[in-house]
């Protein structure tokens, strides 16, 4: 009886997982096949599931039909530079802020934490106009440092909260032990606390990175040429026959792959990072 039930449970669980997997993977699948189709195959109704794949769209990622450079390599480089730098800074400052909030007595700590969280509450569009005006008058529009600053600020709220929950989980006794072993507070943080929060750092970094990598709205409005990343750039691939879906899909595919690989590589720490603190020892 019991055996039967557990077997049924297993089948149900697998069925659920497969359904979820189909839902989540379908867009990726569709993106990939669209990138491999010709224009007429893409728009055909009913949709074509069997076709001869073409790599023509991938050539289109780098060159227009008339053979001029699409600047994709530049946009891709910008995406890497801006995402990496802002991830680095948001994790660095996030970890430091989270550590102080977690360990020190700070007046109005809860309000401060709420304020930090509240920076994430407004939708990006709501802050666009003031940001646009500010950035123009500060000459930060369309600059790499301007975008790094913005994305760092944007991610900081998240990294502070995430890292705080990690630091809260690490008993203060380890630092006390380090203090007694002859280390300063700073050394204790570097040598004892940070090594124990590697998973937290990794998880925060992945989330920040993905958020920057995929950010569209600010990029579309605040950049035009010199600090433009791939998402806003790809959206304007409109040819003389309307949207060039095949090339957009091919570009998006190439843009998604690095993040996919990266996420796959760090999936273990990501999973631990997400469930950290959920189960008390």
């Amino acid at each position: 009886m019991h055996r039967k039930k557990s077997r049924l449970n297993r089948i149900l669980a697998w069925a659920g997982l497969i359904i979820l997997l189909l839902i989540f993977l379908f867009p990726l699948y569709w993106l990939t096949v669209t990138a491999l189709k010709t224009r007429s195959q893409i728009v055909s109704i009913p949709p074509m599931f069997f076709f001869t794949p073409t790599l023509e769209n991938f050539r289109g990622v780098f060159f227009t039909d008339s053979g001029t450079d699409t600047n994709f390599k530049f946009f891709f480089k910008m995406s890497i530079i801006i995402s990496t730098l802002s991830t680095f800074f948001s994790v660095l400052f996030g970890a430091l802020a989270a550590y102080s909030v977690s360990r020190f007595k700070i007046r109005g700590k809860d309000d401060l934490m709420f304020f930090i969280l509240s920076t994430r509450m407004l939708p990006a569009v709501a802050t666009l106009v003031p940001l646009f005006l500010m950035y123009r008058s500060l000459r930060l529009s369309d600059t790499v440092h301007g975008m790094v600053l913005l994305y760092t600020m944007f991610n900081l709220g998240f990294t502070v909260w995430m890292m705080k929950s990690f630091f809260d989980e690490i008993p203060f006794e380890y630092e006390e032990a380090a203090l007694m072993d002859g280390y300063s507070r700073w050394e204790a943080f570097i040598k004892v606390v940070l090594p124990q929060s590697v998973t937290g750092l990794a998880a925060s970094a992945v989330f920040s990175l993905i958020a920057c990598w995929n950010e569209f709205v600010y990029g579309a409005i605040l950049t035009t040429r010199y600090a433009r990343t791939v998402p806003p750039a790809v959206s304007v691939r409109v040819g003389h026959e309307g949207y060039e879906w095949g090339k957009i899909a091919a570009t998006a595919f190439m843009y998604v792959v690095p993040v996919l690989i990266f996420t796959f590589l760090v999936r273990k720490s990501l999973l631990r990072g997400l469930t950290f603190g959920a189960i008390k020892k």
Partner: protein
Amino acid sequence: MASVELHDVVKRFGQTVAVNHVNLKIEDGEFLILLGPSGCGKTTSLRSIAGLEDVDEGQILIDGEVVNNKRPADRDMAFCFQQYALYPHLTAFENIAFPLRTQNMNHNEVNQRVREVGKLLKIEDIFPRKPKKLSAGDQQRVALARAMVRQPKVYLMDEPLSNLDAQVRVDMRAELRRLQINNRITTVYVTHDQVEAMAMADRIAIMDKGVLQQVGTPDDVYVSPANLFVANFIGSPSMNFIPCNYDAASHGVRIPVNGETILYRLPVNVKQSISDIQDGTELILGIRPEDVYIHTEPVDDGFDCQLVLMEALGSENIHHLQRGNLHFVSRTSPADVYPVGQSVWVTLETEGIRLFDRKTEAAI
């Protein structure tokens, strides 16, 4: 090696006074145990010595020098935590080496020092393992090794044995004491286990509710407790307490039992010390279980009561005696067996009688 002094130390947590005007001097090379129930302020005192807590009033001196404003790192003390606090990301070896890594010591010397202390504590074979993979006893040894790898001025230990199994605890107790006797490093050790305190300490400092109750050798605190709290806390089973009133006419005490009064004449040695007490003063007569003798026949200076229960513990027998509302305990050798449920006669060892003032709870 160093002496440690607490001068009028006060530590508050909000409204609670955790350490209340404690004065204590720990001599160079001494093994002092801070003993008391949980929440008595013993751990807070220890952490204040370490510098992990800032004191609100008073001074802490090491070798005569005030260290109130010194960081823990600059006080040159080693702390052994109750939960060991072994760095989970480091191997046992690296845990032990950790305090040396900040001292500009060359690689070979670090290796040598760690191996020496590992050999001493017999933990060399577990060096490559991380704390998670170690038994509680081994974790404890590594924590101890980390404290001992330096030659600090003072060892501070916060209930280091409390997480161990009974057998390991007894072994480690002896081992720890032996090591301390060999290297003679001043040690302050916190425990709530009075047996541990009696077994290990040069002197015991007993605390309750933040106040230091008595400081003395294990023998002192056992034989001459300063007050009811100490008398009750030290010894297992604890001292018998019999409420009574002083009877000046007979130099004795009147013990009220269910309406009647037993007059118990005090022995000569006790009489002298209480000659200035007024008739009728409310007292408590304290007597250790081993000083309560049981007789099967009526005896002089004895009083009769019921033997209600006997616990045979192997190495000793514990007899529970009752007369009306009066209940007390006698400890005898395992050879002494008396009929349970019968009337027996009880006498008290004159040397063992302690009198306490019922109001102040202080010893007289």
